[in-house]
């Protein structure tokens, strides 16, 4: 087996860990007295983590002059992001709103942090739907790239979604926003700025 597919499998197993842990908590009935809230927080936090990890793959590849090439794993990480985000949305719709459509509409209209989160999820949906090779061929490399810049919007909207919910503690919101901002700023830096180049030789 090629090292590449081995990495993919390891990545898959690692990415599934939060989900397995969560399933174990559900089966054990160990989500605490307010399982809806526990699930919403858990899936939300992991969505943020996966979103940042996905975004960092091309940054690391670029700044290491492709010595570390993570681009081949970007799609899998992106799909995991979408999975955790979708679970997060499902928990909100099912457990908070009880699939009450009118309540859903009013929450979406009246609470900007929910609408912002909803739009972010929609961005991720578009990215997930067009993550296959066929879409790449259909859209063309340029079009596909353009569309997939939606991830920048998703990152920013997710940050707003989190910042808008700060109550007593701003650590998590600040940490996410800081890393997200750094990864976006990185994209504006000249390509010559690298922390690792192929020419780096010990002297």
């Amino acid at each position, binding site marked *: 087996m090629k090292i590449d597919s081995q990495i993919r499998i390891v990545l898959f197993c690692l990415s599934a860990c939060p989900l397995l*842990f969560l399933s174990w*908590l*559900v089966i054990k*009935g*160990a*989500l*605490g*007295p*307010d*399982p*809806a*809230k*526990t*699930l919403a927080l*858990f899936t939300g936090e992991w969505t943020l983590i996966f979103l940042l990890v996905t975004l960092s793959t091309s940054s690391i590849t670029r700044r290491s002059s492709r010595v570390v090439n993570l681009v081949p794993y970007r799609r899998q990480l992106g799909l995991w992001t979408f999975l955790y985000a979708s679970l997060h949305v499902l928990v909100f719709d*099912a*457990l*908070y709103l*009880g699939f009450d459509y009118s*309540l859903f509409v*009013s*929450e979406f209209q*009246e*609470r900007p*942090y929910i609408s912002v989160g909803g739009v972010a999820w929609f961005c991720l949906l578009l990215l997930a739907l067009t993550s296959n090779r066929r879409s790449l061929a259909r859209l063309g490399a340029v079009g596909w790239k353009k569309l997939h810049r939606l991830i920048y919007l998703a990152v920013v909207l997710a940050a707003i979604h989190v910042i*808008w*919910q*700060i*109550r*007593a*503690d*701003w*650590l998590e919101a*600040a940490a996410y926003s800081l890393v997200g901002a750094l990864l976006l700023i990185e994209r504006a830096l000249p390509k010559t700025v690298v922390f690792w180049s192929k020419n780096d030789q010990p002297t």
Partner: protein
Amino acid sequence: MKECAFDITPEDVYLNRRKFMQASVGATLLSTGLAASAGENKALRFKSAQSGSSFATEETLTPFRDASTYNNFYEFGLDKSDPAKLAHTLKTKPWSVVIEGEVNRPGTYNLEDILKSHPLEERVYRLRCVEAWSMVIPWVGFPLADLLKRFEPSSKAKYVYFETLHDSKQMPGQRSFFTTLEWPYREGLRMDEAMHPLTILAVGMYGKTLPNQNGAPLRLVVPWKYGFKSIKSIVKIRLQKERPKTSWEMSAPQEYGFYANVNPNVDHPRWSQKFERRLPAASLFKPNRIETQMFNGYAEQVAHLYKGMDLSKFY
């Protein structure tokens, strides 16, 4: 200091707790055991509540384990499970309470001396958190009015101000750099709210002294207001002319007002207050979502206090 049953943690309980904490790294969502075992707290003598009265709802009680492991007490951390894990550092004995301001008998009083003249009674109240979850808790305490009367408020006393202990050595949450709350935690009531028979000072719940995470040794319980009004671990009570600034009001005045009455018609800017999740959930897919009642179901007793007030303005 004299040891009493209240301070002692039997070694095996302590060891089990340690073991649990080690095992729960990464699994902090589990709500097992911990400081919650009721055995650690002293049984109280009190008059049982008459069921069916406004002093005792007949709704199903929230299990002690949930009420004592799912807490908002930011002095001990921001996770609901943090207070149960960390509040053991709070030293509730000896404990004194400063009573000051517009009273004829101000002073610093030992808690035991304060409690001596108050027969304890049980109150089974709904507790509605501003975060849209709720519990039903059997408190043990006495009316705040009885205490205030003893210290003889003057005619200038229009408001009661309360303060929680401020000691970052005992309360690790107060050392956090990332919180928007200013310490000490502050709360307040209008005089008529404070004198209302539903308003109590609690020293216990479920028949025993309060666990630290629930606000030992002395806390306020105002059942028709959002939970954050029911200030914990009180060290200061001041009667005053002006309306005090409360902690949440200071932190986010557009979201938390002085009154904070439970009101399904006035949403929190960021979420609806029309419904609440009565804890614990029956199961994952049955979150026990129920409609929130005006004044948390105590409208008959307290609505007259707010007659003529625009409650969407005085939230």
